[in-house]
């Protein structure tokens, strides 16, 4: 079950990114073309290779023998994140690596968990814990910075359900969420394994709620935004399953 969840999570992430890049381009393109002044055709080729790598990974991750190909998708995600960090308009360059950690680390976790050595499996579990904590901590930090996108997610969703909310009220809610995210991230990282269950379920529930808020905000056309965040829900569940198995 654990590998299935990890595979599903990474596969959905890769599909989401491939679709997003195909339709809306990506930061790697912007960086190569606008900052490094590479030819548009070269940037286009790199973008196409990224899409190819992501789609190949989305399939290969399901097959034991082909699992190393899943690293292609991971490389695509990592270089996208690198570009996101390097473009001059980067808003939180130091946070991106933590914010996206579940998205790009999943194939490594999977390969480590499927390894025959104990250190490899232990490393996989540790990486999962670190990634879960980093993702929630980074989102918590962005929330404490009153990220406008977070404010709009809450305000638009409230408006759509007929509830009028002021920006200051939404800022208060976002700050509260941010502080809770940070607290939960700390617990996920430092608490003893047997005390982690409720935190992991809370994080999984929060992961799916925040992912689905992209649809409540922008409509079903934003499905790929939900897919891109599937790891925020599925990886905490996978980690919970693993810890339960360990206890047994």
């Amino acid at each position, binding site marked *: 079950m654990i590998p299935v969840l990890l595979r599903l999570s990474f596969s959905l992430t890769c599909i989401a990114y491939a679709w*997003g890049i195909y*339709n*809306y*381009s990506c930061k790697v393109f912007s960086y190569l*073309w*606008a900052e490094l*002044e590479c030819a*548009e055709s070269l940037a286009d080729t790199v973008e196409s290779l990224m899409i190819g790598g992501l789609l190949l990974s989305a399939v290969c991750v399901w097959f034991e023998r082909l699992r190393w190909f899943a690293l292609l998708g991971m490389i695509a995600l990592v270089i996208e994140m690198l570009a996101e960090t390097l473009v*001059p*308009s*980067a*808003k939180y360059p130091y946070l991106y690596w933590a914010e996206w950690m579940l998205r790009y680390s999943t194939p490594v976790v999977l390969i480590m968990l499927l390894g025959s050595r104990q250190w490899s499996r232990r490393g996989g579990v540790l990486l999962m814990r670190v990634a879960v904590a980093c993702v929630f901590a980074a989102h918590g930090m962005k929330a404490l910075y009153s990220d*406008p*996108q977070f*404010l*709009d997610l809450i*305000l*638009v969703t409230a*408006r759509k359900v007929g509830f009028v909310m*002021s*920006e200051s009220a*939404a800022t208060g809610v976002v700050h509260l969420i941010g502080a809770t995210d940070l607290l939960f991230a700390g617990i996920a990282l430092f608490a003893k394994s047997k005390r982690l269950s409720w935190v992991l379920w809370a994080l999984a529930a929060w992961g799916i709620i925040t992912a689905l808020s992209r649809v409540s*905000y*922008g409509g079903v056309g934003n499905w790929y935004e939900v897919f891109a965040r599937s790891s925020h829900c599925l990886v905490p569940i996978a980690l919970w399953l693993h810890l339960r198995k360990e206890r047994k």
Partner: protein
Amino acid sequence: MKKFCFSVFVLFALGMGAAASEPLNLRVVWSEDPQHAAVVVWDSDELMADASLLYGTTSRKIGPLGLLKRKYANEAAQSESGLYPDREAKKPKKSADDWVSPGASAPLYYHQVKLENLEPSTVYFLAVKTENGIGREFHFKTAPEDGEAFKLIYGGDSRTHIDVARRMNEWIADLVVEDDSIIGLLHGGDYADTPRRELWIDWLDAYSRTTTKDGKLLPIIPIIGNHDVIGESPIFRQAYGYPGGTNDYYTCRLTPSIGILCLNTEISAEGNQRVFLQEELESLKEDEVKWQLAAFHKPAFPAIKKPSSAKVSWVPLFEEFDIDLVLESDGHCIKRTVPIRGDEESDDGIVYLGEGGYGAPQREPKADRWYLQGDNAFASKGDHVMMLEFDGSTIRYEAILDTGEVVDKASFQARR
């Protein structure tokens, strides 16, 4: 003879000294009420805290040679001045004590003067007064009287290729000389790559090239872009005299019959800004303002990237209040969408123009998007600005490459 040479040297040195604190890049900024108010901003290498602005409706120069001078009618003090901030490079761990940041650029100071109670469609002459005397005379015309036909230039994304921005501004100065009906320039944001001082010095110098040889200034209506807010930099506000205060959004009532909603895509679109937008649209409706436009940086209907928060938060209001035209930037291409209403093409829909080509490298638009297809739409790329001619019940629009070639044109009829 020695004495004479020495005197000449001293005078020359003093002259050089004075030149160091000469006003640079003097510009006129329009925001809420360009018929009656403007902010004049200039820069300098040294702080000119005691300098003031002299202005009036008659030139200081008398006669064809201008050798005789008359006094200006008004003098205005600075409302704010200061040093543009610069982001310093971090000191390396093992560096010597006398380490100097390689990134620190030459200091540059800004000086803002607010002009109020101006008359519409009136030429104002102005000059900066310092302890060294009165500087070069410039002039600008306030926004036109209602009913006068005029042209407004729209350009966005002047970042990255400063040489292109310089060239385009020189070309715009030629257009201003040729065509007296051009009243100002609306900038869609992203003036420089980052809010670093040395990049903004280049941009402000480049824009000063829109000033004609005889000192005619081209007022700018500034909109904020994502590259202007990095690190919560105040440089946009300092360089343009706080258009929109500390929110960086405002309504420009260009004339009583033209309202341009200048919005900010870099903060929450849904919160206070949406409340502001709704109130402003209601007030434009109440005042029966004939032309209602919106302008902002990140597009709601982009030709390349994904839609900004404007699409969810503002487009429904644009459609509810039936605004006439939307001006966007950020994509670095040329686009004119089909008229859009309810996320589909509609005869009574709103057209979105964009997306910035005033120095930023140009990208191939994704012309297969539904709103860029057919005879009613256009998508291309090239260094360009857009010319909007307001003439009674018609806006005539042209996308013009910096070669002078008109690559797209259309006209829009007033809805009210």
